[in-house]
């Protein structure tokens, strides 16, 4: 699975995810990626692209949960994302997310996630493991 989230200097947000799914999956199996609110989600507060085990991410409604915690509880992107990832079954979930205020989170409860990010203030990261 691959994904990207972005926010511009005016606070416009977008998310995109694409995948081939699971190796040896049944014909017709749908994962989390195309399920809005699970593998991919964006609203006026944040944008999220998730990856991992689709069935777990759908059950956890990962994308929408992160946004809802920000929307209804006023959590920061980092607190919301950490809460959702920590509460997903271990080894099943990773996500990248940005917020309207330019926060970036790359959280995962697997052993690794191929990831990269950059911000206008010049900070950037490319990593696989913790």
């Amino acid at each position, binding site marked *: 699975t*691959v994904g990207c989230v972005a926010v511009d200097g005016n606070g416009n947000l977008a998310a995109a995810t694409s995948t*081939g799914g699971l190796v040896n999956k049944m014909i017709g199996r749908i994962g989390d990626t195309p399920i809005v609110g699970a593998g991919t989600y964006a609203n006026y507060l944040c944008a999220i692209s998730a990856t991992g085990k689709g069935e777990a991410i759908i059950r956890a409604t990962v994308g929408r949960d992160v946004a809802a915690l920000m929307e209804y509880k006023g959590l920061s992107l980092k607190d919301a994302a950490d809460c959702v990832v920590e509460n997903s079954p271990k080894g099943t979930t990773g996500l990248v997310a940005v917020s309207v205020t330019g926060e970036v989170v790359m959280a995962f409860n697997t052993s690794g996630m191929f*990831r990269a990010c950059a911000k206008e203030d010049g900070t950037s990261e490319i990593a696989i493991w913790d």
Partner: protein
Amino acid sequence: MGWAIALHGGAGDIPLSLPPERRLPREETLRRCLRIGVAALKANRPPLDVVELVVRELENCPHFNAGRGSVLTTNATVEMEACIMDGNTKRCGAVSGLSTVVNAISLARLVMEKTPHIYLAFDGAESFAREQGVETRDASHFITPENIERLTQAKAANKVQIDYTQPVLEKTPQVSSSNIGDSQIG
């Protein structure tokens, strides 16, 4: 506030022993795609364009599980899926069950922009692709030798695998996943 971007190439049990010849091309693709996304944001392109552009690049890279390099179904075919969403309007588009569309993310965007729907799948999605004239290729374009091998491993282990999880082969003694190397199993 300022702009920001983040991208991923999949998560899972990625072994620390991933050999350089498998790790470096992936890191290089992440670096190249990050550069493309940053340049687009600096050029004031809308985030919807930016995320589509970056995901297209990642789809075209055979080292990641999307587009070329998609993992295989139990029938050794590809069924690709994608989704795109605009935060301000909550407009979104999704597709599933694609086997010939080179860039699934762009078809997802066309679903968002050219149809009253959100999600098209399988035959419907494929015929929409023809109608829209997006680039399509023979299914073999997406299949790599590595993924054929991974399917073989997964079948031997009688497992369905998530991204990068190592199959533990039934017939062999329990082998720590970190010893099997990269799997990009999806």
